[in-house]
């Protein structure tokens, strides 16, 4: 049984670890430090932690000002507020000026669960991807969260790292995280499944079942949405008969859109997308919601069969 971790726990611990080594790391939160786990850093380094209260716009622009003076600023709140409420500040201050502001947004996606639609960011990747030069990472599990947070420090500029709320199983045998380089987790030449975030586990479960029926699936974890690893995607488009893309996000402007652009422009193959389709979220348990919105391994299996039929 795979280890289950909260990505935000891992994030909070990574911040503390980084804060010890690097005195220029400063952390901002907007009254959600307990949930985002920036509270770990606040406890260890109170002088380098600033709580902005429920005022995300101010927080984002202030992060830019602080980063302009040479600091690396991690800014956390829920994804719906980071990407939605403060979008103009993220565009015009954070990204346009391009300093080291690393937005780590938690509680993204439908798996937020019972809080319902207002708190389920299903369009945050699209909002961030529309902004030039915004680097975007969607780690698939706990350990990858740590790798992404560490990696973003050495790369200049603005980042958006998307984390979920629930515990997620650790994905095994995926290899070392390399920014901008997709991970081919299983080999296969029949169909490709491209996924990010918690959908990687669902994809692997689907692949395992399909293998029993003799369908060999290549599962690719595209943890970096920007810059997108076009080469790995195109290689899969060439070598397999079709692609199923899965993301816990609207199919507009996220992973699905980006992969389809690359494929359509270079090597059109049959593509099916599993994601949120023109719907708001709603209350429910994460597993109920994943089922309701057709984001389970079963849905992926069906899509794979459809692609090769």
């Amino acid at each position: 049984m795979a280890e289950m971790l909260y990505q935000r726990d891992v994030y909070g611990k990574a911040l503390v670890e980084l804060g010890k080594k690097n005195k220029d790391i400063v952390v901002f939160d907007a009254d959600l430090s307990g949930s985002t786990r920036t509270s770990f850093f606040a406890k260890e380094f109170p002088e380098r932690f600033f709580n902005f209260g429920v005022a995300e716009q101010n927080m984002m622009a202030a992060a830019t000002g602080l980063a302009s003076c040479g600091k690396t600023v991690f800014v956390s709140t829920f994804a719906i507020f980071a990407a939605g409420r403060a979008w103009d500040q993220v565009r015009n201050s954070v990204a346009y000026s391009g300093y080291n502001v690393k937005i780590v947004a938690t509680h993204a996606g439908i798996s937020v669960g019972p809080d319902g639609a207002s708190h389920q960011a299903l369009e945050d990747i699209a909002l961030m991807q529309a902004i030039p030069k915004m680097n975007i990472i969607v780690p698939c599990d706990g350990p990858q969260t740590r790798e992404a947070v560490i990696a973003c420090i050495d790369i200049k500029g603005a980042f958006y790292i998307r984390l979920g709320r629930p515990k997620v199983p650790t994905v095994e045998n995926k290899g070392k995280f390399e920014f901008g380089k997709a991970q081919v987790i299983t080999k296969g030449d029949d169909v490709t499944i491209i996924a990010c975030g918690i959908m990687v586990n669902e994809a692997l479960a689907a692949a395992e079942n399909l293998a029993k029926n003799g369908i060999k699936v290549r599962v690719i974890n595209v943890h970096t949405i920007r810059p997108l690893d076009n080469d790995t995607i195109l290689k899969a488009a060439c070598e397999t008969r079709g692609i199923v893309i899965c993301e816990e996000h609207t199919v507009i402007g996220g992973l699905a859109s980006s992969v389809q652009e690359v494929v359509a422009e270079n090597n059109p193959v049959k593509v099916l997308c599993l994601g949120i389709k023109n719907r708001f979220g709603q209350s429910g348990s994460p597993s109920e919601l994943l089922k309701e919105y057709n984001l389970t391994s079963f849905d992926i299996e069906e899509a794979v069969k459809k692609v090769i039929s």
Partner: protein
Amino acid sequence: MVEEKDIKHLEEKAKQIRRLIIEMLAKAGSGHPGGSLSATDLITALYFSVLKHNSKDPKWPDRDRFHMSKGHCCPLWYAVLAESGYFSVDELWTLRQLGSILQGHPDRRTPGIDVASGSLGQGLSVSLGMSLAAKLDKKDYRVYCLLGDGEIQEGNVWEAAMACAHFKSDNICAILDYNGFQIDGKVCEVMNLEPVAAKWKAFGWHTMEIDGHNMKEILSAFDEAKKVKGKPSIIIAHTVKGKGVTFMENVCDFHGRAPTKDEAEKALKELE
């Protein structure tokens, strides 16, 4: 004590800055003269008498920071930067042209500009970030931020106002260019701000009100702000939109319209 000759020097400098603003806008054919001219005396005094900076070393870590939150008035910023030696005055004639270091709204490609602006309401937050950096690094540089009166209708400004007081950012001095006009008309008619001073006071700020065209009052307000401990300061500067060019003064049209060639000639005559 400020000497009479220093005041005279600043007044002359301000006149020169106004000339550059008019010439640059006429050449560009678009831009915002009204609010550039109303804040000219304030920002001239700041750059040529108050601000600790070095145009030969724009990234000097200990420099005072200035951020123009009302970014549309960047012709003023560009003129003082050029006059301070950050780049050649000839660059001013490229304003708003493709490939220019002088964009229509402030951008980091301009030497002397640290953070982009233009989308109103964010600059006081940016300044707060700079002020926190000074405190973290135990440096004594100060942070100045120019706000427009129409601009403070943005909610973000009040989030920042609350936070600056909360973090006791006494190294921040905001300057409100209260010229009374915004694009659609008089500020008091579009969206009344009054009582402005009481609002800032209630948010925990040391609040001063001055005539924003009186050099003596401007310098003494900057001086007073430096002495305030434990809270941020704001200078509410009562100004005249389009100040210095009679046919532009208090004329809303010149908020966002550049002078024509003829208008520019007429304006420059007044500013001789």
